[in-house]
Structure formats: structure tokens, C-alpha cells
């Protein structure tokens, strides 16, 4: 497979960056992920994941405006690159086709 490997956590971070649409930065991402997935996430994990994603070219970043809460420090705003977007789509497609080929789709009600 040619596509860069994307870890499960990285995928969630990347998706959340896409969801937040241009307003994604460390704290916002952390809170959003905690809210949506219910898992406990720490700031440093988000930062590390973002940096990995940036190294892989899936997100790009620019400095935003400072706010008072941040003691006048700027935030780094992340957005998904075209490459990142395509990767997400590919993942989605692979999964969809796999689901599609399942002879007995796992229906929540039936799987009981």
C-alpha cells in the first residue's frame, strides 16, 4: 500500500481537525475529542499527534491571534491538507467496501 500509514488515534485527530474546520488547535482539539469519544486525552498526546501528522503532510498550520486566556500567546491553527483529505477518503472507501462485502452485515439487533 502506497498510502502513509495512519494510526487510529492520528485518524481521530485528523478527522477532528477536519470537523473543526480551520479553528483546530491543541486545547480545542483535546476538548472536542474528549467530548466525542469519551476517552481521556492529554494535551501532549494531541500535540505529538499533530506534529506527526504535519510531518506526514496531512495537516498544515499557521499562527493565529493571541487571546487573554493564553496570556497573550498565539495559537497554532491546523487545517487538513489536500493529501490529508484524500487519505481520509481512502480510509473511508476501504472501510465502506469491506463493509459492503460482508455476507452477514453485523446488524446491531441481529448480532444479539
Amino acid at each position, binding site marked *: 500500500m502506497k498510502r502513509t500509514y495512519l494510526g487510529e488515534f492520528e485518524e481521530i485527530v485528523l478527522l477532528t481537525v477536519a470537523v473543526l474546520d480551520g479553528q483546530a488547535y*491543541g486545547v480545542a482539539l483535546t*476538548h472536542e475529542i474528549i467530548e466525542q469519544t469519551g476517552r481521556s486525552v492529554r494535551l*501532549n*498526546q494531541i*500535540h505529538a499527534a499533530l506534529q506527526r501528522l504535519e510531518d506526514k503532510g496531512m495537516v498544515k498550520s499557521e499562527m493565529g491571534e493571541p487571546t487573554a486566556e493564553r496570556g*497573550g500567546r*498565539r*495559537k*497554532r491553527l491546523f487545517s487538513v491538507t489536500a493529501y490529508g483529505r484524500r487519505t481520509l477518503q481512502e480510509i473511508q472507501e476501504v472501510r465502506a467496501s469491506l463493509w459492503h462485502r460482508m455476507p452477514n452485515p453485523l446488524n446491531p439487533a441481529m448480532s444479539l
Partner: protein
Amino acid sequence: MVFADAQERQIWVFTLNTMKHPPRFADQLLKFFCAPHRYEEVQGDLHEEFAYQVRQIGERRARWRYVWDVLGFIKPRAGWPFAIKREQQEFTSTPLLSTAMLRNYFRTAWRNLLKNRFYSLINITGLTAGLAIGILILLWVQDELSFDRFHRQSSAIYRLENRVGTGSSQQIWTTTVAPIATFAKREVPEVKDAVRTANNGGYTLFKYKNKVFNEEHSYYTDPTLFSVFDFNLIKGNPAKPFLDNNSIILTETTAKRYFGDENPIGKVLAANDKASFTVSGVIHDFPKNSSIQGDMFLPISLLFKNMYGTGKAGVNMDNDFAEFSYDTYLLLQPGASIGKLATKLRNIHLRNKPDDTDLTYLLQALPDMHLHKADGTDGGIETVSMFSIIALLILVIACINYVNLSTARSLLRSKEVSMRKIVGAARAQLFLQFLVETALLFSLAAILAIGLMYVLLPTYNTLSGKKLVLDFSNYQIWLVIGLTITGTLLLSSIYPAVLLSSFEPLKALKGKVSACISEASFRKVLVVIQFAVSVILMAGTFIISNQLQYIRSKELGYDKAHVFAFFMRDMGKHYDAVKAELLAQPGVTGVTRANSNIVQIGRQTGDNDWDGKEQGETMMMRPLAIDKDFIPFFKMKLQQGTNFTGSVSDSLHFILNETAVKAARIKNPIGKRFRLWKHNGTIVGVVKDFHFASMRQKIEPSVFYYAPNDMNGIYIKTTGNDVDRAVAVAQRSWKQYNADYPFEYFFLDDLFNNLYKSEQQTGILFTLFASIAILISCLGLFGLASYTAQVRTREIGVRKVLGASVSGIIQLLAKDFVKLVMIAIVIAVPIAWYTMSQWLQGFAYRIEVQWWMFAMAGLLSLAIALLTVSFQSIKAALMNPVKSLRSE
């Protein structure tokens, strides 16, 4: 950060002030670990999160959470050290260590060395002397500390001791009874194994074919000696070192002495013409740093067989709790409690011999034996720590010289430093340059020092009584040398390097680096330290030599001049004839005999009784059997009563010394009852106290008794002129009665001097080290003084032109240094006073510390300093001002 306008800025300031602030130390931590290019957003995020958490869970918990979050960022993990990777720097800077620059540093350093030959010479001489002496002392220290630590189980081996006696006569014996070891091994679970050794006095003359030697270092021992300690057999059966009672084990050297290159195992040695021993094993020679030494070993079971085998009904090796003559070592289980063990041993002893109520057991760790006294207090360790401190002081003095000279002369280097900075040298590079320079000088000094050590070592060994060798295959020697050199190098390189690399180029080029005040005063502090150390050492030297003088000249209470002595062996049976023959010789003024050595009476007993002795009281005393002419022979004084007359009734008469009378609290002692062992008799005289041990010890109770059959030590007094003749006659009669045995005599004077051998050595070494320290200090002072004179050449020229006198100029130059030395004296005196008083505490008989000793040390160091400084000052003052002024 950029603000849109002033109003917004106002809001910032306002909110910042009212906002809760996260813990600052956590911020510091983050700043340290975080990659700089990511720092802003990470910290921003953290602060935002903090503000959010303050609202959610309150400030106190939010602060904890903040720290936790920061720690998350510095948690190292595989591939992601410190959470966020550092960005590569955009511009590559010149590496600190490029070979080209290093070569340049070495070249400049070398040129500098050559350019300033005078100062280089002073520096190298000082450092070489300091390093050589410092390392020699530290090698000595290391050797002393290594004693008995080479055994694999050394930390689990203890020597068994007894504390005996009550009141002032209480003391510690390092030898114990034999059965305690057997009982301990059998009954006490903490004791894994036990080793006993005992002196062998029974067999002394050993013979193989035509080789005969008188063995002085032979011992009886348990076979466990060769398994508990690391004295393993190199030949023989380790499982059974002694095959039977007539086996013997030799050291390699001893075996070689008898058998040459033949295999010693199975060879037979004849002993004293009455027994023969078969060699059953050979061990390595004992290491020099072992407290246990010996040449040959016989099975201890043989001793027991000889002692108990024949008669003495009922007494055997398992119940003789009265014979305290065995060195006992116990190998303990790990974690055994020493205190409990001692109690258990005491209980065993009391069970077997209930009347020894005054006896307790002590255990001393094997590695402590060499440097501590039997009761665990400081012994040789005192000298060891004293010498280590001296070594460090000498090294520090040598370092101070270097630091002082190089910082003083830094002015001359300021232009070079400035040029280097202007063409782009970083401070770190300059720092490195000066480090290299110091290292170069140090390596030269170190090489010379090692050479010097080689030359000095034989002399040093004679002085210190050691057998040190510079064996460079021994890693410990490298350790000592390496640590010393690196330590001193660091000590003396950092400050000058920091100082020299700190010059600001513009100021320096304008010539404005007048030696700033703080730096000059730092130098003064160092000079003061140097001289304080010198004064302390000098005062120490005075006090030690005075004390030694005092010991040697103190009235001993007996006259030992020109007396020689020896033990008569079989000659003793013909004492009267021998005595008559000796007295007939010219030059022999007296002959007497006793059963022990008067310079150091070895025996001791507590088996005595008198009227008024309290229940449970024990008075340990030194018994000495003497002939009737012993007291007049040694010119001792009887305080009261009479001497022995030589009659039969004298065997029940005793003469006590004053201390014994005092300790026993006997009033009007003459005629009072006194019992020694089984002899119940009366006191007929009291002899004035005399010193029969080292002056470190107080005079102990002692008793003279009369036992003509037990006086085998002969004392012969000569006029001092015909000594050789008297010795020759004594030797002739020795040969007549003792045949093969070698004739060994000693002079009491020599024996007496031997008592103080270690003190003498300490004294000599101390003097030596003190002189070296002073010498090195003076070298430094000399360098500083010449530098000052050099810098002030023109000033002196101008002063002379304006009419200053030579003495005025000398005063001007010397004044500063003299002031420093005076301060040093003031600091040194109390320290010296205190430490030397402590040292003197070790002597029961000692001198008082006198003020003049310090005054003398102070004056002497002042004089030496003045001499050093004035040499340069006079030279400067006598210079022709025309020359010095024209040179501009």
C-alpha cells in the same frame, strides 16, 4: 507579541494582573525542555487549558493538573524525546572542537609557554612538586585504607575481643580463650565459621638437610584460616590443609628458603631436634596490606595435644576458659547483630566460668583492625585523615599558584582575547582555548611529577616505613594519579578560563581592563589561604617535634642507658656462672635478670587479691619477676619499704608500684596482705612509678615478684665504651649453652626508640610536607611579586627620579604582601591551636601548647615571605630609572 493598539494593550495588562497564574516552576521546566519553535503555542495551549480547568475544578486542583500536563510534555518516549522534536538549526555553526582550531590552541599555548619562560618555570615547578608530593601522600593513604579489604568475605569477618577489668584498670584484650570459638560455632547460628591462631613458641628452629632457620613468625592455626580468609592453598588439599598433627603449611617464600625449586609437598622439616613436620600445603605470601602475617603454620590441635594431652587433670581444649592467648576471628552470617552476638558469647563464657563477671565480648570488623584501636576508637585513621588533608592542601596550594599567576597576568592576554573575539570567536571557544593551555602545562607537570615520584619513592619508603611501588599495572595507582590530576586541573583551569574569556573587546583594546577590584581581591584571598595553610603546617611541625622531644627526654623512672638484653634459653640454668664471667669483663658494670621486658611489659593479670578489695572489682596489673639486684641495677627508687633480699621467703613478698597502691587504695602498704595468682604473701616495698609502655598510655598498676626459676631475660649494663667486647662474651656463652640457636640481643635504647617509631615517622613526614607546602607557596608569591614589580617598573622609575629612596620603594612593594601574610597568621593560629590540641590528646603525657610556638611559626612564615618578596622588590628598586623610563 504585536498589539493592535494601545487600548488593547491596556486590556492585556489588566487581564494578566487579575488572572490566576499557573505554577511558575512548571513554566520554567517547560521552557527548558520544549523545542523553542513550538514553545509559544504549547505554553499558550497549556495556559488556556489551565484557565478552563480553574473554572471547572477550582484553582488548587487546576494547578496540580497544570504540573501534570507540563510533565506530559517532557516525558521521554521512544522516537519522541521530550514530546516535541527540536527543529534543526538553519545555520550550521562552527563546531566547538575543530581540529584546526585545536591545533591553533596548542600552538598559541606552546608559544605562550616559551615566551614567558620565567612564569612557566615557576608554574611547572610548583605544580610538579605539588603533584608529586600530593600523589605520593595519597598513595600512602590508599595503601593504608586498603588493609584487610582484599578478602572476598572481609565485610563478614570480625575479630573477637574481650573487655576486662573494672574501674581505671579496665582494658581490652585482643586475644581470647580457645573454647569460645568452638562453642560459638556449635551453638550460635550467626557464626558461620571461626579461626583461631596462636603464637608458636615451642618449635622455633627448623631444619631441612643442611638448611637451618630460626623461625620467628610461625603460628598454630585452625585449618579454617585457609578458607575463611583468602589465604588459599596453592599446593595441597584445600579440603584438608593439615593431614595430621605433624603437618605444616608454608608460604611460598618460606618453602623456597628450605627447598629451593623442589616441590615442597611431602618434604620433612625437623624442628628443635625433637619433632618433625611434613609439608602438606603451600600458600601465597601474605599481601603487604594484610594484618595477618606469618611464614609457617602448624595445626592448632597439636598445641592442644601438647598443652592438655599429658597431665593437668580435667583441663582440656573445651573447658579451659582461663588461657587468653588466641587470636579469634569469626565469620558471620550476613545481617547478624553484633551486639546480640556479643551478649550470647558472654553468656556462654559465664556459663563455663561464672567468676569472670567483669568480662564482656566485643567484635571488631576485620577492615577496621588496621586503622582503629581495639575498642573501635581512632587509631591510625587519625594519621591517615591528617595526611589526606595535607595532601589536598598541598595540591590546593599548587593550584592557587597557577590561578594567581595566570589571572594576574591576564592583562597581557586581553588584547589577544579581544582580537579573537572581534574576528568571531565565541566565548566557549576562548574558554576551551585557555582550558587547553592549562591542560598542556598540567600534562608537562604531570609527566615531570611521575618522574620525580620515581626518584623520590625509595626515600619516601624509608621515611614512611612503607613498601610502595609504582606498579603501573595496578589500576588503583592510575585511579589515584588520574583523579588527582583531573581534580587539580579542573580546580585551576576554570576560573582563569572564565576570567580571560570574559574580556569585552572594545574596552580591552582601549586598554581599560584595569584589574577589576573583585578579581584582585580574589587573588588576595587565595594568597591568604596559601599562607594560612603554611602557618598551620609549620605550627604543627613545631608542636609535633616538641612533643617527641618531650617523650624522649621525660624521666622514665629507670636508667636504660647502655643496657643490652636477651632471652637466655638454656643458658638460664647456668645464670650464676654466666653472670660471674660477664662481670669479670672490663666495661660491664652490672648484670641482672627478669622474666619480661622492662621497656614494654607484655603480660597482664587480674588474678590478685588484697584486704579491702571490693566484690566484683578487678585490678589488671603487669607482673614482673625480678632478681634482687634488679631495682638498683635500673636505679629505680623505692618510695618505701625494702627490696628483695634473695631469701626463700621472698617468693611470698611483693613490691608494688605507686599506681597499684593507689588503685588498690591500700593505706600504709608495707606488711599488708597481697595475693598474686596462688601466692598469698605480703607487700614489702613500693617502687616509684616508672614507664614500662609508650607515653601514649598512662602508667598502669604493676607488681614485682621474686621467682628465681622464671627469670630468663638477662640485662647487661656496660659503661658504653666496651660494648662490643661485652656482647662478644655474651655471645660466646650463648653458643656454649644454646648451640644452633642464633644469638639475638637488643639494646634497651633501640627498643625504646622503636616504641615511638610511628610517631617519629609522622613527625619527619609532617616536617617534610610542611616545607614543601611553604616552598610552593613561596614560589607563587615570588611569581606574583615579580609580576607586580614588572607592572610597576615605570612607576618606580618616576618615583626614583622624583627622589624616592630604595628602602621606600621596597616598602611600597612589600607592604601589600606582608599585610596578606599577617591576615593569614591571624586565621591560621586558632585552627592550628585546635587541631594540635586534638592530636596531643592522644598522649597520656604531653606538652602544653604554648603561644610562642605559633608566634614562631608566624614569624618564620613572615620572614620567608618577606625574603621572597624583597628579592624582587630590591631588584626593581635598584633598577636605573633612565632605562625603565626610556623603554616606553
